[in-house]
Every structure is written in structure tokens, then in C-alpha cells.
């Protein structure tokens, strides 16, 4: 009768409420530590992408300028300093990959050279797209000695960058992010010289 259906609803509701409560509690306990680790990882990535700098300061105004020039995937911009000397720029780019948003950290030194590319978050295909995070891909010859006046492309698109085998889309996404950072760096460094 109705009593039986009521029991089903009540038990299921209780299970869901208890589960929700446990998850909310676990979340509140773990979230601060997860955020702290993300911050640490970000700082480490900033440092690795522009080794010549030791301090990084966020620049929102310059970022707007960069967006207006069409580089809309760049979500953060830092100027890297060592003591008081400006050593270069670091961009954080969010690009659409194959199955996730890939977050890149791209460093360009003050003399307009690509200083480093790191991937700080992604959820691409295990065993394939994930390889874009590896040094074999990010530190390949085509990504060395690149100036901010250059624009890169994977071999399939007529460029020099070796894509990860079986992960062209993920590789292209990284190239897109790097290109925007290069274009933005070129824009800002040229402006500074004038």
C-alpha cells in the first residue's frame, strides 16, 4: 500500500541526505588544502616557465589590452621580476583541448624569446593526449629558440612542432595557446619600446 512506497522514498531520501552531508563535510575539509596545492603548483609553474625571474606580479590592465588584440584565451598575465628588473612576461592560457580545458603557463623573456611552456591542468586522454604534459613534447627543438614574432604550427599544419602521436587535437591546442602568448608578448614588448 501507500505505506510501503512511503518507506522507499524515506529510505532513499535519508541515504541521499546523509551522502550529501558527508560529501559536504569532506569537501569543506579537503578544499582548502586542494586550493593551497593548486597555488603552490601555479607558483612552481610560473617559476619554471620564466627561470630568470624570482617574483611575479599580476597585471590586469595590460591583460585587457591583450584581449582586445584578439588573444582571448589568455586568462592571466604576470610580469616577472628579479630584484627590480623586469625579466619577462608569463601568461596563463586556457585552451580547449580534446576532452578538457588545458591550462598552460607560458613564459616569454624580456628580449622576446619563448622561455618555457608548462601544462598545469588538463584532462586529456590517458596514454595519448596526456603526453602533452611531458618534457619530450614541451621542450622539443621546435619550441626552443622561438621569438615573439613567430607563430607556431604542428607538422600536419605545415609547421615544425612535432605533435604527440595520436593526439593531434591536444597538441594543436597547446600550439594555439603558445601562439596567443607569443602574439601578446610581441604586442606588449613592442609597445614598451615605443
Amino acid at each position, binding site marked *: 500500500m501507500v505505506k510501503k512506497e512511503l*518507506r*522507499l522514498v524515506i*529510505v*532513499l531520501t535519508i*541515504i*541521499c541526505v546523509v*551522502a550529501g552531508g*558527508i*560529501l559536504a563535510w*569532506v*569537501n569543506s*575539509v*579537503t*578544499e582548502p*588544502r*586542494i586550493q593551497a*596545492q593548486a597555488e603552490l603548483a601555479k607558483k612552481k609553474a610560473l617559476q619554471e616557465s620564466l627561470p630568470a625571474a624570482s617574483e611575479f606580479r599580476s597585471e590586469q590592465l595590460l591583460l585587457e589590452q591583450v584581449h582586445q588584440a584578439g588573444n582571448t584565451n589568455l586568462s592571466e598575465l604576470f610580469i616577472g621580476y628579479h630584484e627590480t628588473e623586469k625579466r619577462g612576461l608569463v601568461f596563463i592560457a586556457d585552451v580547449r583541448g580534446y576532452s578538457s580545458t588545458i591550462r598552460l603557463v607560458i613564459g616569454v623573456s624580456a628580449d622576446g624569446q619563448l622561455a618555457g611552456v608548462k601544462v598545469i591542468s588538463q*584532462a586529456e*586522454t*590517458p*596514454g*595519448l593526449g596526456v603526453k602533452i604534459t*611531458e618534457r619530450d613534447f614541451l621542450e622539443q627543438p621546435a619550441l626552443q629558440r622561438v621569438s615573439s614574432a613567430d607563430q607556431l604550427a604542428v607538422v600536419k599544419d605545415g609547421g615544425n612542432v612535432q605533435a604527440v*602521436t*595520436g593526439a593531434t587535437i591536444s597538441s594543436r591546442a597547446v600550439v594555439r595557446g603558445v601562439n596567443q602568448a607569443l602574439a601578446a608578448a610581441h604586442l606588449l614588448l613592442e609597445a614598451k619600446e615605443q
Partner: protein
Amino acid sequence: MNKWQIFKNGVFNENPIFRLVLGMCATLAVSSAVVNGLGMGLATTVVLVGSNMIISLMRNVIPKEIRIPAYVVIIATFTTIVDKVMAASTPDLHKVLGIFIPLIVVNCIILARAEAFASKNTVIDSAIDGLGMGIGFTLALTVLGTVRELLGTGTLLVAKDFGFSGITFFPKENGVLLMILQPGAFITLGLVLAGINWWVRKKEEKNNG
């Protein structure tokens, strides 16, 4: 069945991949490399043991009409807890296992064992079943991963996060790319399943004849 038989059952007689043919989505995706398989197997075993125990604990409380939604909620909650706790306390391991942990929720093995075993047995037996199934799963992933990684890339046990670049058997260019992509997963699984079925049948004939 005694405790040891329950455990052995999960690893061999009712191996979740090769005999029960469950958890295929995760298997096909993750068996492209040995280390990936090991990571996934480890994470799945933890969730399997935990959810089996909790569902066994509550087996007399959950009405059978709503058992499936109840199990799903419990399994999803457990998986999320494992994910969050690992992200907070073991960030490096979590980064390696990363995407495999949420994938566990879609792994049918866990729901199947909840329904077939945990809801009808004691907590300790359910834990052992979970452990056996988890290890059977890991073993199967390792077998498939070995074949696919070796033929597909020429190396084994590439574990870049641990600084180990694997044992190379032949250069990457000579590898069969198909093996590390989806068709290779299906083909490898099919051939291994065929081999195991043939072997089991021969054993049965020997026992009957």
C-alpha cells in the same frame, strides 16, 4: 565458499574482465599502458572494497525496490571521498591517477559486485570479494596493457611521473600505432578472451573426460 576461495574467485574463476566481461569502458581506455592499468586497478580496488563493505553493512536496511539507486549513491559518494582525500593528502599520486578516479564510478564491476555479493554476504566476506575482484581487475589490465604497450610503442612500464622511462624493446617508429588506440584495445581484448575461453574449455574437457 571459504575466505580464500572467495578471494581466488575474484582473481581467476570470475575474473571481472576475462570471465564476467564487466567494466569494459574503463578497461579499453586504460589498458594502453601498463602503469595506467596498475593505477586504475589500485584506485578501483580501494573503492570496490569500501563500497562492498558499506553496502554489506546496510544490506538489511535498504529495501530491494530501491537498491540500485541506493548502491549508485553509495558508490558515487565513496568514489568522490577517495578522490577528494587523495587530492588533498597525496597530491602527487592523485595527479598520476588523476582522471582514473572519477572513471571508477562508471565501472560496472562495482555495481555488479554490490548486487551479486555484498547485498547477500557478511562485511568481511564482502571485503575479501572486493579485494579479489579488484586484484583480478588489476591483473587483467596488466596483461592487456603489456601486450598493447609493448606492440604499440616498443617499451614497457613507462612511468614518466616516477622518472622511469621504461624498458625499451624496439624503437617507437616500429610500433603498431593501432595497438594503443581504441581498435587495438578491442582486438587485444578479443584475442585474449578467445585464448582464455579455449583454455577453460580444454580444462573442462579434461576434467569430464
